[in-house]
């Protein structure tokens, strides 16, 4: 397979995975749009890596059942991962970069719960391990 074919194939996978993740999150919240902010955003550009980036601005979308569903989706795409970044309006400057890597076989948990409201500080993900964004 030459470079162009490979790139085209990877881009198709990206589109498919992005659409499925968007469809899932749309059941729990509203996507960002040009007409106003929502609860999440699935970044629409393929940058050449087997990743789909999701930005979550409503912490409800970090609930374990939602993340578990995300993992179920990415399981159908071996080698790919979801990069879930937390970006809550009003806390862009005073919260550090944090998030999750949702992979078919594991969840890398880089949430810094001390910044969260109390009701979200106890979130735990089954089968996850703590990690950094360099994992």
């Amino acid at each position, binding site marked *: 397979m030459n470079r162009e074919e490979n790139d085209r194939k990877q881009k198709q996978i990206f589109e498919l995975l992005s659409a499925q993740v*968007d469809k899932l999150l749309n059941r729990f919240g509203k996507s960002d749009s040009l007409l106003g902010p929502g609860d999440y955003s699935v970044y*629409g550009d393929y940058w050449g890596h087997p990743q789909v980036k999701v930005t979550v601005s409503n912490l409800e979308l970090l609930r374990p059942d939602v993340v578990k569903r995300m993992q179920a989706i990415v399981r159908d795409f071996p080698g790919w991962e979801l990069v879930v970044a937390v970006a809550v309006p009003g806390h862009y400057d005073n919260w550090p970069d944090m998030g999750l890597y949702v992979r078919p076989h594991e969840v890398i948990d880089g949430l810094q719960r001390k910044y969260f409201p109390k009701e979200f500080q106890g979130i735990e993900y089954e089968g996850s391990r703590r990690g950094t964004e360099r994992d």
Partner: protein
Amino acid sequence: MKRWIQPNPPPPSKGWQSRAEILREHYASLSPLELLRVRPDLYAQTWGWDFENKRYASGRLALYEELERRAGFRWDQPRWPKGSGDDSGRWSGGAGTGPQETGPGRGPIRGHHFVDKALYKNLSLRPETRQVFDEGTTGPLHAGPHRWSKEHKIYNDAVAEHFQRFLKEHRIQPEQMTPEQAQRFVSEVKGSRDPRIRSFNTKIFMREIRYWFRRMPRGSE
């Protein structure tokens, strides 16, 4: 005594030139590669970001391919897979001694949309207006992997605010937006002075420049 005769006629007088004119002439005489070395900012103006004249992709891609050819890169050259110790990820020499890893991250890609697709996918736009947003990209990028940064969200927030102002100023609804207006909006985003937009676009651009600087042949290569 024989009289000396000048063998070649003297060059025509160029008249007085300012330093800026001399420099401009000098830069114009350089090849794209030389220009990228000495004045990456001018190179970018000429070859990197001229979307309207569509010189971006053809000019830059041709240059990249030339750089890759000079550097001896071959996309289909096998690489040592993960778990091969210190050799992991290195070229296997093309001898087929290591399985080929044709993973993503190396091929040409369309790059960053100035207006993220996620932001307009659900809007009721005219097809030709949507096409303008679809095509408003940086062109192929060689970006690193995504991390947990908030920069996309901050950028998208700023673009959305700009869009709402744009609609208000032109007294239109999204479904009434013409392709010309969409083009104008994309141009405004590209040239935006909003630090949230400008810093993100500049970061992408500088990363590209650094990527190609690292791959340029040096000295007598």
